[in-house]
C-alpha cells in the first residue's frame, strides 16, 4: 500500500511538471495582457499532432520533434495574436473571450476535418527506470525533465534577458514601458507567442505519454484553469506549484477511490479555491 502510494505520488509529480508547463502558457498570457486564452486547449492539441506527424510520419525522434513544435507554436501564437487578439486588447473582456473562443472553434473544426476525432498514438518506448520497488517508464521521466528544463528556460528568459524584462515591464505598466522606449505591442505579441509555444510543448510531451484526439486539449485546458486559479492568476511560479498539486492529486486519488472521481474532486477544489482564496495559493501576479 505504502509503495503503491509512493509510486503514485512520483507518477503524479512527473505529470504535474507537464501540467504546470501548460498552465504557465495560460497564466503568462493572462498576466501580461489580461486575456484568457480559450484556444489554449486546441493549441495544445496541435502540439500533440505536431509531435505525432514529425515522429510517426517523418521519423524524427519525438523529443527532437518537440523543438520544431516549439518553433511552430511560437509562430502560431504570433499569428493568432495578430489576427484575433491585438485588436480586442482594449475592448471589454467579453470580446477577448469571444475572439479566443473563435480561434478555438476554428482549430477544432480544421483539426477534425484533417485528423477526424479518432485517437492517435505516438508509439515509442524507452524502457523503464527501476528505483527499488518503484518502476517508472523513461518516457515519463524524460517528459518531466524536459518540462522542468522548459520552465527554467522561461524563468531565465523572463528574469535575465532584456526582452524578458521588457515583457515583465509591459505587464506591470504598459505606458511606462512605452516611455522607456519598449515597443509594447511587440512584447505583447511575443508573450502570446511564448504562451502558445508553452502550450504546444506541453501538448507534445503529453503525446509521448498518452493517446489523444484533436479534442484532447479541452481536458488539459480545464486542468490548466484549475491550476492557474490554484496558483494565482498571472503567476508562473504559482502555475508550477498548482501543476504539481494537481498531478499528485491525480496520482493519489485513484489509489483510494475510483478514477472517475478525479475530475469531480478537481472541480470541487476549483470552486473551493475561488470561494475561499480567489487570489490563489501563491497570490496573483
Amino acid at each position: 500500500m505504502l509503495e503503491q502510494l509512493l509510486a503514485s505520488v512520483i507518477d503524479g509529480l512527473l505529470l504535474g511538471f507537464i501540467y504546470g508547463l501548460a498552465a504557465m502558457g495560460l497564466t503568462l498570457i493572462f498576466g501580461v495582457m489580461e486575456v484568457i486564452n480559450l484556444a489554449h486547449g486546441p493549441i495544445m492539441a496541435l502540439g500533440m499532432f505536431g509531435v505525432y506527424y514529425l515522429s510517426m510520419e517523418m521519423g524524427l525522434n519525438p523529443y527532437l520533434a518537440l523543438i520544431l513544435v516549439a518553433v511552430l507554436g511560437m509562430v502560431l501564437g504570433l499569428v493568432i495574436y495578430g489576427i484575433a487578439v491585438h485588436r480586442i486588447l482594449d475592448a471589454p473582456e467579453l470580446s477577448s473571450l469571444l475572439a479566443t473562443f473563435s480561434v478555438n472553434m476554428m482549430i477544432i473544426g480544421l483539426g477534425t476535418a484533417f485528423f477526424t476525432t479518432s485517437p492517435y498514438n505516438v508509439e515509442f518506448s524507452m524502457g523503464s527506470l527501476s528505483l527499488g520497488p518503484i518502476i517508472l517508464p523513461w518516457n515519463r521521466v524524460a517528459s518531466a525533465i524536459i518540462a522542468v528544463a522548459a520552465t527554467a528556460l522561461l524563468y531565465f528568459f523572463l528574469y535575465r534577458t532584456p526582452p524578458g524584462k521588457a515583457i515583465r515591464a509591459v505587464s506591470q505598466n504598459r505606458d511606462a514601458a512605452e516611455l522607456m522606449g519598449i515597443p509594447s505591442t511587440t512584447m505583447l505579441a511575443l508573450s502570446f507567442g511564448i504562451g502558445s509555444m508553452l502550450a504546444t510543448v506541453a501538448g507534445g510531451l503529453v503525446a509521448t505519454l498518452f493517446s489523444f484526439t484533436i479534442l484532447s486539449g479541452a481536458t488539459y485546458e480545464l486542468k490548466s484553469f484549475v491550476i492557474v486559479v490554484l496558483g494565482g492568476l498571472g503567476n508562473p511560479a504559482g502555475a508550477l506549484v498548482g501543476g504539481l498539486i494537481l498531478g499528485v492529486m491525480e496520482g493519489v486519488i485513484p489509489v483510494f477511490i475510483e478514477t472517475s472521481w478525479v475530475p469531480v474532486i478537481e472541480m470541487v477544489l476549483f470552486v473551493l479555491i475561488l470561494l475561499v482564496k480567489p487570489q490563489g495559493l501563491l497570490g496573483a501576479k
Partner: protein
Amino acid sequence: MAVLEVKNVSSGYGEVQILWDVSLQLEKGKLTSMVGGNGVGKTTLMRTIVGLLKPWQGSIMFNGKEVTKLSAHTKAAEGIVLVPEGRQLFTDMTVYENLELGAFSPRAKANFSRNLEMVYEMFPRIKERLNQLTGTMSGGEQQMVAVGRGLMAQPEILMIDELSLGLSPLLVLDLFQILLRLKGEGYTILLVEQNVQMALAISDYAYVVADGKIELQGTSKEVANNAHVREAYLGI
C-alpha cells in the same frame, strides 16, 4: 535653436477635447516650466508630446524633424523622455531593473555605464537599495528612481511631470538641487511643478496653462512679475 516645437496642437480623451491650439517651444539646454492650476491640461500636453496620446491637430517637431505621429516608444528611443506624474515605476521590479529598463533603447544602452555612474552619484540613497522592489519604497525614494530611470534613457529632452508632488519640503529642496545640476550640465528640460514660485525661480522660460490653452508665456522673470500670475498662482 528649438529642440522641440509644438505647433497648434489640439488633443484630448475620446470625444472630450482638452487642449486647444497649444504651441510651445523648448530651447536647447534651457529649463522651461509649465505652470497652471489642477486639471488645466499640463499632463495631457506632456502625454501628447511623448505620443501616449495622439494629437488631433497640429504638429510636433523634434530637432527640425516631424515626429507628430510617431509611437511613444519610438520617440522615447530618440530621446524624448518623460518622467510621468505619479512616477509609474515598475513596482514589482528592483531599483536596478528599473534603471536598466530606462536604458532599453540602443542610444541609451550605448551610454549605460556613464549614466549609471551619474545616477548613483546624484542619488546615493538609491544606490544603497539597488535590490529593493520599488513598490516598497517611500514616495521620495520612488521619485528619485523615476528621475534616475529617466536619465538612464539618455534624454535629449527631459520632461518631468510634478517633480515634487506629495514630497516633504526637505526632499523638494534636494530634487530642485538635482534639477539645477542637470540644467548646469546642459540638459534640455520641461518641468511641470505645482510649486510655482520655485519653478519660476530656477527656470529660464515659462508657460502658464489655463483651460487647455497657453494663457501667458515669457522669461521666468517676466512671468513672475506679471500681475495676474502674482495674484492667481503666487498669492502675492
